[in-house]
């Protein structure tokens, strides 16, 4: 079995503060890995570092054996970012959003080929939204929008899929639909890295859990059961997760005109 993700001595700082320190992780072909840990433990940051969204301070990441900086086969990656909604400032149909996930595979400046259309239709079927293709994304429920984001990643037919808290704020019925979609993908042999607080219906799919605590790997091994993180590893038994940690981040009230000289704060918000 080949190694799909290999991170060695990975460290990440945000605004000068170390967030991840000395992470060593190797994930093999076809594994379904759950990244777990309390708020602020660095799960999302690790996914962002592994996908190249967040620069490393030290260490190295290899995807499919290629160092991340030189990794060009981006069509092999899928990414489902943590979003409260799939809608933008302008109406867009489910089909349009999902087809933007096909850009990695379709030729530049050419219309969709029939193979692209088939892949988009297939992605919509996997998440069970084929009959909503023509509807506006904003008219869907939160859980359905989350499924649209997953379909968008699936349209590119990834071999390695990262999902950042796809179940946050999603009702049980939608979590079940989501688990079914991921099971189909897993059966096809894809490697899946999932950030989650609670696994719920996803629990039976997980092969391996990695628990982060305060920016370091606290546990790496077989899954721990549903409400997954023991208190000794930094789990908080009675808190419930509400999805959008960033909203609660401290605000600074000085106009940051000088910020281009600093390293990037939280990107892409």
């Amino acid at each position, binding site marked *: 079995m080949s190694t799909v993700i290999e991170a060695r001595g990975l460290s990440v700082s945000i605004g000068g503060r170390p967030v991840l320190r000395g992470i060593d992780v190797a994930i093999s072909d076809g594994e379904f890995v759950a990244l777990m840990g309390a708020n602020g433990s660095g799960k999302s940051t690790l996914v962002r570092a592994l*996908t*190249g*969204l967040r620069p490393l301070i030290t260490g190295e990441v290899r995807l499919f054996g290629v160092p991340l900086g030189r990794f*060009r086969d*981006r*069509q092999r*990656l899928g*990414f489902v*970012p943590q*979003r409260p909604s799939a809608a*933008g*400032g*302008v*109406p*867009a*149909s489910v*089909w*349009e*959003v999902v*087809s*933007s*996930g096909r*850009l*990695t595979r*379709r030729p530049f*400046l050419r219309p969709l080929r029939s193979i692209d259309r088939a892949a988009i239709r297939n992605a919509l079927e996997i998440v069970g939204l084929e009959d909503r293709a*023509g*509807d*506006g994304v904003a*008219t869907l429920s939160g859980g359905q929008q989350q499924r649209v984001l997953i379909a*968008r*990643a699936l349209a*590119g037919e990834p071999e390695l899929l*990262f999902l950042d808290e796809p179940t946050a704020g999603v009702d049980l019925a939608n979590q079940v639909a989501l688990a079914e979609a991921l099971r189909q993908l897993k059966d096809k042999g894809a490697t899946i890295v999932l950030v989650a607080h609670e696994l719920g219906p996803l629990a039976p799919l997980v092969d391996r859990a990695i628990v982060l605590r305060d920016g370091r790997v606290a546990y790496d091994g077989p899954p721990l059961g549903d409400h997954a993180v023991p208190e000794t590893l930094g789990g908080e038994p009675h808190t419930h997760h509400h999805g959008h940690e960033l909203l609660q981040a401290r*605000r*600074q*009230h*000085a*106009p*940051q*005109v000088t*910020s*281009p000289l600093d390293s*990037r*704060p*939280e*990107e*892409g*918000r």
Partner: protein
Amino acid sequence: MTELLGILTYPFMIRALIAAVVTGLAAPAVGTYLVQKRLSLMGDGIGHCAVTGVAIGLLTHTSPTWSAVVVAVLAAVAIELIRERGNTNGDLALALLFYGGIAGGVMITGIAGQSAQTLQSYLFGSLLTIAPSDVVVTVALALTVLVACLGLGPQLFAVSQDAEFARVAGIRVRFYNVLIAVLAAVTVTVAMRTVGLLLVSALMVVPVATAQQVTRTFRTTLAAAMGLGLVASVGGLVAAAWLSFAADVAPGPAIVMLALACFVVSWPLGAWRRHRQRLREPFAALEPLGHDVTDAHPHTHGDDCGHPAVPHGDHVDYIHDGHRHAPHGEHYDEH
């Protein structure tokens, strides 16, 4: 009326009409991407900065159009780079840039010994100042903008919709973000003569706001916005020419007022459509708690009975005086 037809055949009017057509199509095309990125006011910011560009042209006795293009592009790239840093106070930093732009423009115009009147023709548009060479430049730039906006549509859509996703997918996000900014800057200067720098953003954004009242997909929003932009810019120009017999009306305000009028007409339509959509949204597919039969029910529900039929699991519920009536044999159940 014959007077109007007469004025429409003047060479300067024909030039203005050509400029209005291409501007009316190009501005909402860029505007759609700006609105999607939730940067509706970016065009306004670039317009403010372009005022300084015009003033530099007046000061150095070079073409104000070209100096405006240069300054607008620089400003747009600066705005984009500041925004890319993505901190919560980005909008405040942008505001500083906007006011610097317009204050600098007015000040340099004064230093150049030009009157406010000269600047005004750039701020609010002017029919008479469009020279034949301007028309050629305007058409060429506007066509460039249109080709880029439509040809690179899938990439620009993906980047505007979700920049992080696009980055992981290997799309050159910064390149496309800067491209949108540059296209917006070019559009601002293209529209400078017809709508004017202070109102150009309206032609970029208002047709999009109007279109999205009634559209569901990005593609139709883009097309409808371009159509509305065309109607507003040509209609506003003709209206300004017509009114010019009675009063001094600049084309810019006429175009923007017409675009806003379209919005005012479409808004109730959109509000009604959204209301209807909410009403028809399926109920959660939960079993009713018990078998509650409604009171004596003389009315027969059907396709055109006037009561909204809302999907509920495998059947429909009819909404009747705040109740949900589901047909069950000979009677109706309360669901």
